[in-house]
């Protein structure tokens, strides 16, 4: 028996009014399923940050989410500019968000580190000029 549910979302670029819709939807679905609340909290944060990053930096992208009883997998893929220095991007406080985005309250430089903290595994595949694919897993059981 296959217990995996999968969902796909298109994250529109530069549309801050819709940013967060995919993560809200995933959170809502997980709640309906009765998923572990701590896992829901971590998925909501990780996915929201990923979504926002695609909106700010990549002109949007796609999100694929798979939910199974053991874990939630999120794959966020964009065809944006890519990340030239991933270690730097992961550093708390480092941000390349433009001023107009900062005025909206973004650009704290916490996005990537929030994703890292909230996920059990996180892989980044990125190529400058081609785009970024981010794969994150959140296990139903808390991180030890």
């Amino acid at each position, binding site marked *: 028996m296959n217990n995996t549910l999968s969902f796909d979302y298109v994250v529109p670029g530069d549309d*801050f*009014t819709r*940013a*967060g819709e995919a*993560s*809200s939807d995933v*959170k809502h679905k997980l709640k309906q399923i009765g998923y572990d609340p701590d896992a829901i*909290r971590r998925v*909501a*944060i990780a996915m*929201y*940050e990923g979504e*926002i990053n695609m909106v700010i930096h990549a002109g949007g992208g796609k999100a694929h989410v798979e939910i199974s009883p053991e874990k939630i997998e999120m794959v966020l893929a964009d065809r944006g500019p890519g990340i030239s220095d991933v270690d730097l991007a992961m550093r708390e406080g480092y941000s390349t968000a433009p001023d107009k985005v900062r005025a*909206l*309250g*973004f*650009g*704290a*430089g*916490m*996005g990537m580190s*929030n994703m890292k*903290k909230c996920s059990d595994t996180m892989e980044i595949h990125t190529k400058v000029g081609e785009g970024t694919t981010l794969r994150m897993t959140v296990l139903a059981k808390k991180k030890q």
Partner: protein
Amino acid sequence: MTVKELAETLSLTVLAGKDSLNRPVTGGYTGDLLSWVMARLPENAAWLTVMGNINAVAVASLKDAACIILTDSAPLDEQARDKARELDLAVLTSRKNSYELGLKLAELLG
């Protein structure tokens, strides 16, 4: 204490929220940088901020905040108001700044 009781006690104006006004408030948090708040805002907290945009509504909703309280009379923009009403997220406003209101909130919630 519920959001509604909080609003009455602290003379806050309700801008959005219906059933959500009956939610319990168990703590508070203040901050304006959304990713920072995203990482730290406790569930059922009253979030004191000057960010009255749709992204703040998304953060509060994703983190299950009890309500947003806009301090310093910071405006709630139209899209944010519509979204808050759609999600039934309580949004209130105060003339006090985050520091002043935070002190009052701490006195109330102990």
